């Protein structure tokens, strides 16, 4: 087949002449049909089907969300019931992990347990605590934080062991970081017999934990 060559003057005549042949008619029909199909697919069928499937997906997702929310509401009601049942027990959690360091109270407890176990505190240090009002912690919500401290108790081994055991049996969460038992130096008091020769130094490095929600 010869390529079509059009001249502006006899354009209409040439087109008529070309379309007169069956082959050109068939080709033209096929080409225009495919272009028309492509056009309608792109601008009519595609948006319609896309909207249809999008809406169907939205309905499915909404049903799923509704089902999961129903489950969550049920779980929340159960949680509320459990909370009411354990309301008194929850206070124990506040004692174990208070919302503020409460280090002064903790310090009193440590002092009391040392005295009760007939030991004496010979040194105490904490770099994480100040007696000034605590600054509000905005970041790291819900993460346990610790006030680290070290102290040395001086007494014979059984008393010091008891101090350690009592410290570990406090409701307040205390994490031991290091423990050292060391013989005390031979002081003048010891030489003269005014201090016990059995005394040993128990050095404890630990952290008292608290949990902030603000």
């Amino acid at each position: 087949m010869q390529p079509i060559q059009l001249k502006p003057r006899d354009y209409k005549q040439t087109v008529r002449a070309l379309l007169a042949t069956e082959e050109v008619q068939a080709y033209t029909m096929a080409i225009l049909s495919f272009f028309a199909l492509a056009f309608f697919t792109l601008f009519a069928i595609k948006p319609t089907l896309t909207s249809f499937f999008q809406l169907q997906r939205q309905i499915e997702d909404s049903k799923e969300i509704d089902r999961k929310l129903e489950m969550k509401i049920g779980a929340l009601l159960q949680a509320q019931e459990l909370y009411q049942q354990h309301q008194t027990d929850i206070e124990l959690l506040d004692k174990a992990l208070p919302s503020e360091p409460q280090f002064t109270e903790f310090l009193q407890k440590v002092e009391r347990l040392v005295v009760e176990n007939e030991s004496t505190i010979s040194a105490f240090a904490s770099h994480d605590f100040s007696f000034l009002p605590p600054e509000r912690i905005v970041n790291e919500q819900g993460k346990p934080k610790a006030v680290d401290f070290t102290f040395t108790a001086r007494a014979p081994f059984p008393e010091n062991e008891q101090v350690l055991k009592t410290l570990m049996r406090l409701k307040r969460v205390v994490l031991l970081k290091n423990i050292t038992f060391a013989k005390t130096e031979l002081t003048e008091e010891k030489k003269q017999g005014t201090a016990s020769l059995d005394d040993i130094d128990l050095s404890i490095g630990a952290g008292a934990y608290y949990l902030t929600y603000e």
Partner: protein
Amino acid sequence: MSNKDWLVISIITFLTVAVWTVYEIYHTAVTTTVTPVQEKLIDPFEPTFDEEVFKTLQERND
């Protein structure tokens, strides 16, 4: 260009549009419409208490 070339171009155009449409529909069908906020809201949780913790705490000293 001959008529045959035009026919080939029209067929390729149609096929491209058809494949594009099928891909778009598939993509729409499999893409979730749940927003991150909704996902956070429907995040499940188990309403349970560790009773052992309470027992342990009750046994401890103040």
